[in-house]
């Protein structure tokens, strides 16, 4: 079961990379067409930039993600004994090496894990989490994060985060340039003739720029929703105490949204830090549903 989950995660990582590169290429084509009147330049530039960006991002993912979320690392048990010791315990039962430990200064309780593989992983918890959770609730939360580490969920979600951020960046740049530079483009119109095709391409370009961020969000959701249930089950397996996680989830469900959260990282957290109401674009399954499944175990 665990082995299959790991295999499926590794397979999905490759599919995800592939799909994202197609998206990046399409966005590149749209931006290239609008800015430079050249589909090919746009595609090639987007793929090259995308690849360089992905390599940099993935090789240094923990630091980048932690910086995006304002996490600061703690190096020994004295700085936050309860958190450190709980992470140590959970790493031991999950049989993974001790991850790096980070704390985020935010009163809203939340936590996430990131990294490329169990050997290079990191766990972050907010100060709010440490404040309101008792030991067994904290264990439930950290065990949930540790099962993300063990399942290789961290790899796929970190890559998805990097790629989604890249698409957002590309479309933002494209959007700004198009808005300010549209005069130039219109002047060059007569050069390529064929009005009908022109309009079609223009509509397509605008559609792409609108849809790409939505697609990026959709992919992030697809990878994160189901694995939350799996990580909840994994947490119960590690702690042998589903009650701890259940009461932690209740507290997380009632909490305020986080003050200053990077929205592309939202899918990493154990409970949605943005607390938005829309169901369709929710990165997390509803808390009640998660509690329900835990209670049935």
């Amino acid at each position, binding site marked *: 079961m665990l082995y299959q989950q790991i295999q499926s995660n590794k397979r999905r990582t490759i599919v995800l990379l592939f799909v994202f590169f197609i998206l990046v290429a399409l966005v590149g084509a749209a931006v290239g067409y609008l800015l430079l009147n050249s589909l090919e330049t746009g595609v090639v530039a987007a793929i090259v930039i995308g690849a360089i960006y992905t390599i940099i991002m993935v090789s240094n993912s923990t630091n980048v993600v932690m910086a995006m979320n304002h996490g600061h690392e703690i190096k020994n048990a004295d700085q936050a*004994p*309860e958190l450190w*010791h709980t992470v140590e*315990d959970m790493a031991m*039962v999950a049989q993974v090496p001790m991850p790096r430990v980070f704390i985020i200064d935010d009163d809203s309780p939340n936590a996430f894990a990131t990294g490329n593989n169990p050997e290079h992983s990191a766990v972050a918890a907010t100060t709010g989490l440490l404040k309101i959770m008792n030991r067994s609730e904290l264990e439930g939360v950290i065990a949930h994060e540790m099962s993300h580490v063990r399942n290789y969920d961290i790899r796929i979600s970190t890559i998805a985060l990097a790629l989604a951020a890249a698409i957002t960046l590309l479309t933002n740049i494209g959007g700004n340039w198009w808005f300010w530079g549209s005069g130039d483009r219109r002047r060059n119109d007569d050069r390529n003739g064929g009005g009908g095709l022109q309009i079609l391409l223009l509509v397509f370009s605008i559609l792409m720029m609108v849809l790409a961020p939505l697609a990026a969000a959709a992919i992030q959701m697809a990878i994160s929703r189901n694995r939350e249930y799996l990580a909840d089950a994994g947490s119960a397996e590690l702690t042998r105490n589903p009650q701890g996680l259940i009461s932690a989830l209740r507290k997380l469900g009632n909490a305020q949204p986080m003050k200053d959260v990077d929205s592309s990282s939202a899918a990493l957290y154990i409970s949605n830090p943005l607390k938005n109401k829309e169901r369709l674009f929710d990165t997390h399954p509803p808390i009640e549903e998660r509690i329900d499944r835990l209670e049935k175990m």
Partner: protein
Amino acid sequence: MTILIIIAIVVIIAVAWVSIYNSLVKTRMQTKESWSQIDVQLKRRNDLIPNLVETVKGYAKHESGTLEEVTKLRQEVERAATPADKMVASNQLTGVLSGFFARAEAYPDLKANTNFTKLQEELTNTENKIAYSRQLFNSTTALYNTKLQQFPSNIVAGIHHFEPSEFLQVPEAEKEVPTVKF
């Protein structure tokens, strides 16, 4: 041709034999490693207890009986010869300690002592690690014992005399919440 087939079969069996043998050795090693995890934590707790006794002595006069019991059980854990005996003494010690920490809530001076709060976190941490390493020990033991019984690894295990590893029982008393009296 027949000779080639026979050689091929022999080679396949030899390779399978070696890989099964190695995986048995590996899982047996894991059970030993997880036992040593428990042992490390038991030693750690034994090292912390004299500090606790020293710290508490001055504050909680009514706890002298508890402290004596803790010291006595600590020695029992140290002296126990077999893993089973060790765990029996350790479980009693866990019970006494958790009862004591529950009662410690009633001593405000003690709770204000930073040395004590630090020791309390250290001991809680050690107790948790004992519980979790015991859980780990039981799951590695389950894996190993299953291999000893499964076909075809049971044949290899039988011939090379791999002995099953024994589970550690979780004591019933430990599952109960300690009663707090004021």
